[in-house]
């Protein structure tokens, strides 16, 4: 985005250059075409999901939240349709993050920064804000003229500006509002929000997201992608020569001439390029660059310049895709008279896909086979073992039982390890001796103090493994955990 300085324009005052550069405002022109349609479609899907997903219901039975996607922080639960995750299972999120990262790598190795151009929230909301701006203030030329005009503000212009910012703020506010709905029952929270009874934290989050959306999509725009986001730098290190990037096919475009001249020269049988230097590709670019200067860090691969140029090419009767998703290898091959090759399947795309499939498969498998009854055991550390007055040895454990199912369970605990050991739970008078039974309410954890006592042994082993079996009396489901029984 730095202005290219022509040596002739430099005066001695410019010796050191400016300390900082003012932003050059970008006025992207509206465009229609294939990639623009894809972008509209993806925007609709992304925003639709984001804004309306909290209102989707999912019946989980009595007492459980019936919101399809819910992050229930007070109760430490995460609900995603039929999946319910506990805090102990955060590794699913780790897996999800890894898959997401590798998916980003895969996209990058196929099509460069296509994430940036089509799916990144910054792109989606900026695009939406541009659309609003265009609708109210007009297209590129009009906006430029209005911004430049030094006339005193007319009422019409003022109302335009007020309207634009109101709609921007409304979108930003709705964005923050939708965010908080993921953390609470959506219909209830909406009611609370409008009657000012929602918790303070909800208003704070709405405020934060309203402010960031308004600022980032309304003002910062392409600067976020160029200066604030690390991805352009990272992806530059991840990409390779086969990745398809939005490319100006200079082999076909150069030399640039006007339509008329080109026709004349062609008639004379001379070699001319297809680019008519109309600057349409520059006018539509949301980051304000000229793709004809070659691959640039600022380019977010949105493909709008492709649409713009395609329209021009159609009009002047030349083949489309003077700008297209391509790479330098093919340009050079064409120059050498060879056919272009496209390699989507190559080592890195295979590896990335394999990683995604492997982790995704593993996660699906563990999710499908995960147990709804779980037990964790922690051995007392001080004292590690207790000698009782009759010489028998006792070890104490903290046992945590997890009942992830939607019903109460009666469970029995027994310990296998030291010979003739007895089991006792503090606070539980069990009907069956040595096999204490207890009820764990549905969707909850119980922490118990469990004592295992083994009779005196003349040659006690220092440490015997002990296995705790937790059995659901009704369903027969068993969970177990292993620890050690220690002698002093």
């Amino acid at each position, binding site marked *: 985005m*730095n202005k*290219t*300085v*022509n*040596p002739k324009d*430099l005066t*001695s005052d*410019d*010796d*050191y*250059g*400016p*300390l*900082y*550069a*003012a*932003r050059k405002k970008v006025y992207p022109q509206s465009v229609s075409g294939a990639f623009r349609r894809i972008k509209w479609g993806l925007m609709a899907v992304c925003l639709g999901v984001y804004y309306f997903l909290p209102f989707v219901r999912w019946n989980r039975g009595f007492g459980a939240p019936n919101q399809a996607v819910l992050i229930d922080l007070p109760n430490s639960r995460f609900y995603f349709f039929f999946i319910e995750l506990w805090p102990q299972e955060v590794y699913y999120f780790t897996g999800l993050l890894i898959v997401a990262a590798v998916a980003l790598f895969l996209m990058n190795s196929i099509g460069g920064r296509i994430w940036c151009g089509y799916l990144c929230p910054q792109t989606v909301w900026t695009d939406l804000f541009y659309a609003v701006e265009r609708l109210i203030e007009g297209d590129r030329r009009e906006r430029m003229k209005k911004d430049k005009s030094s006339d005193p503000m007319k009422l019409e212009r003022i109302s335009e500006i007020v309207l634009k910012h109101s709609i921007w703020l409304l979108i930003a506010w709705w964005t923050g509002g939708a965010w908080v709905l993921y953390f609470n029952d959506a219909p209830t929270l909406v009611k609370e929000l409008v009657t000012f009874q929602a918790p303070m934290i909800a208003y704070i989050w709405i405020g934060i997201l309203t402010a960031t959306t308004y600022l980032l999509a309304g003002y*910062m725009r392409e*600067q976020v992608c160029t*200066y604030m986001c690390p991805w352009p730098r990272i992806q530059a290190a991840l990409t390779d020569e086969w990745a398809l990037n939005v490319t100006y096919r200079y082999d076909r475009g150069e030399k640039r001439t006007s339509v008329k001249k080109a026709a004349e020269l062609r008639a004379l049988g001379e070699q001319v390029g297809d680019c008519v230097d109309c600057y349409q590709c520059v006018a539509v670019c949301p980051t304000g660059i000229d793709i004809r200067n070659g691959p640039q860090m600022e380019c977010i691969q949105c493909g709008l310049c492709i649409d713009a140029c395609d329209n021009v090419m159609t009009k002047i009767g030349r083949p489309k895709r003077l700008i297209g998703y391509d790479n330098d290898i093919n340009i050079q091959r064409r120059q050498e008279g060879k056919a272009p090759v496209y390699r989507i399947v190559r080592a890195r795309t295979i590896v990335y896909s394999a990683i995604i499939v492997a982790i995704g498969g593993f996660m699906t498998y563990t999710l499908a086979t995960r147990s709804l009854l779980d037990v964790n055991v922690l051995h*007392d*550390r*001080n*004292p590690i073992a*207790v*000698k*009782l*007055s*009759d*010489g028998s040895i*006792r070890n*104490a454990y903290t046992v945590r039982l997890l009942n992830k199912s939607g019903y109460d369970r009666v469970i029995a605990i027994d310990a296998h390890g030291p010979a003739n050991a007895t089991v*006792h739970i*503090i*606070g539980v008078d069990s009907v069956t001796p040595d096999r204490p039974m207890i009820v764990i309410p549905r969707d909850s954890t119980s*922490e118990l*103090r469990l*004592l295992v006592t083994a009779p*005196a042994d003349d040659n006690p082993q220092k440490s015997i493994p002990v296995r705790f079996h937790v059995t659901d009396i009704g369903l027969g489901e068993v969970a177990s955990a292993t620890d050690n029984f220690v002698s002093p």
Partner: protein
Amino acid sequence: MTDHSEVDAVTGKSTTGHEWDGIKELNTPLPRWWVISFYLTIIWSIAYWIVYPAWPLIQSNTTGVFGYSSRADVAVELANLEKIRGDKMVALGAASLADIEKAPALLALARAKGKTVFGDNCVPCHGSGGAGAKGYPNLNDDEWLWGGTLDQIMQTIQYGVRSGHAKTHEGQMLAFGKDGVLKSDEIVTVANYVRSLAGLPTRNGFDAAKGEKIFAENCAACHGDGGKGNQELGAPNLTDKIWLYGSDEASLIETIGQGRAGVMPAWEGRLDPATIKAMAVYVHSLGGGK
């Protein structure tokens, strides 16, 4: 020095005039908003110094214009916590010990509260888990000098042992050697006799009959005829496997010769009744309670 007005031929951009090993730095200025944000953070930090306590002085520190202090914050938080817990602790104070053990919610609260209070007050002597040490009873086992029921444990915590409190447990192992009641060889004999009571091996050629006689005359008053102990007097059971001061001959000789008198402070007055109750429940639930 190089010529500042230089322009890089390849990029067409001006250079800063700096050159290292023939490589010239292009002038790529920061965006204005970035520079402004940077200055704003500097201004913010200065404001921070003024508003909040920041600078150390010789005697104290700058206090900030609003007199904010994190210590005051903690006090407020603690007061809030008391308020939140208030009801539950009242319920705990009102319930009887037996009821607490039967109500899971109260039991959990008492155990949690008891555990923290135990950590603050009892750990120096009894160890973090109540494991005890030589001379300091292990609270996890089933040997209790003054009784191991909930009420007895609570009483011991409340009034202590030889604590000076009016209702304290009193009881003492006399110093039979130091006070000249028993001679050295008699002490050795009775020590071996006591070991025989517990089923421990005895010294070769020790006179069991003599030991029994010395025990009956001097020790049975407190420890009982068979050495089974007496919780009324805090006299330990000598026939079991648990020894507060050690069961080897040397330790026993020292115990009999020099006497023993451990002290446990009375917690009444230092801790409120509900807290003492919580502590009793916690100690009882360690597993040794009767």
